[in-house]
């Protein structure tokens, strides 16, 4: 692409409007990268015989992705910036671990008491013992299923509702009073009501997770519609888009960056709500596991539960961010830099 851009001559021959007006071009890799580099990259993957198989016929210019390409892709991404970032991440996590380790080793006790806090070794032993046990994995599976169900329902209701509220004043006037009075009620405060409301515990917990995720998603979607540049809607209209087409082709993609902000926030709140609900009313689930461990004076499992919640939460927001990058590739070029 970048190469084409440099060779293509403008069809209207007016000087000064050629490709030099480009602000940014995507830099394509050089067409023939040094063979040595490719070999080195390929050799780094000894488990791939196909890429170096001499029995294959002369490789034509077929656009296939070999492991060598993948390796090169990753090697190219090792930059100074990334190494620094990785090092700092290690320092950050290392400090946290060190505080835990030293605190429990010397039984630190000055207002904060590390007396009963399990040591890393104890937690590790516990993890090794029950980490792959059926009970532990079932608990995780329950929590993940509840999160996904509640979160997906929150998306399915929150995004369309947000788009409609954002777009139509009458819908806004109709729905916003209810939204505004329900919104300040924290999901945890819904626990008793939810248990009364729903036929079983499972539905009640999913409902509480849904409540947690719903409002951030809804409000950010509304905000996304409002912050959409009006000229884009006018442009869509005069290019012949009807109301439904406008929604699907302009308003939804235009609000997408804000919707994803809502998803990220909503996922965080959903986890908070889920764990609280599981602790109070649950059977199964990571929150239940953690609370049960406390009742049984099983301190290492408390820590294990907390770490599990942290890792699951991190994974969930990581997935959302990844989906966001895949769905909104244009943001890489948006003014204001990378997200």
């Amino acid at each position, binding site marked *: *692409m970048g190469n*084409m*851009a440099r*060779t*293509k*001559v*403008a*069809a*209207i021959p*007016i000087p*000064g*409007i*050629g*490709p030099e*007006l*480009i*602000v*940014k*071009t*995507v830099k394509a890799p050089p067409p023939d990268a040094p063979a040595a580099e490719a070999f080195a990259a390929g050799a780094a993957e000894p488990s791939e015989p196909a890429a170096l198989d001499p029995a294959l016929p002369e490789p034509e210019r077929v656009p296939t992705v070999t492991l060598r390409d993948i390796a090169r892709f990753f090697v190219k991404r090792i930059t100074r910036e990334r190494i620094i970032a990785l090092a700092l991440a290690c320092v950050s996590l290392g400090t946290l671990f060190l505080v835990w380790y030293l605190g429990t080793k010397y039984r630190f006790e000055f207002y904060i008491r590390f007396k009963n806090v399990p040591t890393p070794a104890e937690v590790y032993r516990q993890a090794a013992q029950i980490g792959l046990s059926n009970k532990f994995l079932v608990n995780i599976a329950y929590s993940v299923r509840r999160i996904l169900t509640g979160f997906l329902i929150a998306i399915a209701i929150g995004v369309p509702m947000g788009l409609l509220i954002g777009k139509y004043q009458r819908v806004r006037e109709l729905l916003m009073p209810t939204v505004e009075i329900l919104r300040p009620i924290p999901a945890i405060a819904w626990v008793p009501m939810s248990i009364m409301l729903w036929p079983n515990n499972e539905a009640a917990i999913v409902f509480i997770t849904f409540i947690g995720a719903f409002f951030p998603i809804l409000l950010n979607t509304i905000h996304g519609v409002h912050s959409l*540049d009006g*000229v*884009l809607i*006018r*442009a*869509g*209209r*005069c*290019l*012949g*888009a*009807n109301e439904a*087409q406008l929604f699907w*082709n*302009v308003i939804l*993609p*235009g609000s*997408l960056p804000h919707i994803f902000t809502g998803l990220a926030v909503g996922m965080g709140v959903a986890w908070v709500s889920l764990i609280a609900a599981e602790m109070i009313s649950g059977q199964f689930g990571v929150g239940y596991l953690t609370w049960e461990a406390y009742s049984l004076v099983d301190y290492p499992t408390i820590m294990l539960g907390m770490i599990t919640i942290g890792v699951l939460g991190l994974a969930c927001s990581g997935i959302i961010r990844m989906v966001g990058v895949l769905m*909104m*590739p*244009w943001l890489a*070029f*948006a*003014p204001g830099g990378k997200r």
Partner: protein
Amino acid sequence: MSVIETSLEPSGQPAREAPKGFVDVRNMGVTFGSGDNRVVAVEDVSLHVQPGEFVSLIGPSGCGKSTLLSIVAGFVTPTRGEALLDGKPINKPGSDRGVVFQQYSLFPWLSVRKNVEFGLKMAGVGLSKRNVTARSLLDLAGLLSFENHYPDQLSGGMKQRIGIIRALATSPQVLLMDEPFGALDTQTRVVMQEILTNIWQQFRISVLFITHDIEESIFLSDRIYVMTARPGRIKAEIKVPLPRPRTPEMTDTPEFLNLVQELKGLIREESLAAMAPEIKDRGLAGFGMKVGPKGVGELY
């Protein structure tokens, strides 16, 4: 969608029975607000654009020229009078009128080609066909090699070129342009004017072009309407007798410079009036003198 096929043969004059794209604005008046906040933006304006004619509307800022264009585009309903396109009243936006906005209005989430295809997609044109159309238009604008870029990767001049061909993709009867080069630097602007004359030369589409740049309006137009300060009225109608195709050298000819002088005189009066309404009654002789509590003397 047969219109698309015909208009994409820019040079080979398509066989149209009657040329289309006749814009007729009759006794148009626009009032915003009511009571004490009542503002008359446009008052009794009549103008027209012949099929295939390039007409500019020039006037001081705030004179209602953009409002007029919004009415022809179908975004604003006039308080009085009517706007017609080929005899039919205009009451909502539609793809028979292509609009190029002053702000960059490309959809940032679509690639350059998908932006150009947008209007065709809305009209239900098939993928391969709109692909071909978009690519030929991009080629015309010298941007084919950028078809897979996103708008944020392009310069202002490129974005506006794409804005123009995107508006042309649905084969509108008329192109409405609202200070399309206003946000560009002077050099790019001059080049864009040439590109626009080139494209217009090939499509021979009616154009209603809004600007506050005198040279730009003369260089581009067959005819120029000069508007008064608010409330906007048509102050003068000026024919531009320069031959086509227009070249940059023409801007140095006496004819061109005379037109510039003439228009400058007309606009200056109105610009001053727009800033200090008192001048309008006292005439330009009052310029520079203390006129009143908020008079001219304090403005300069």
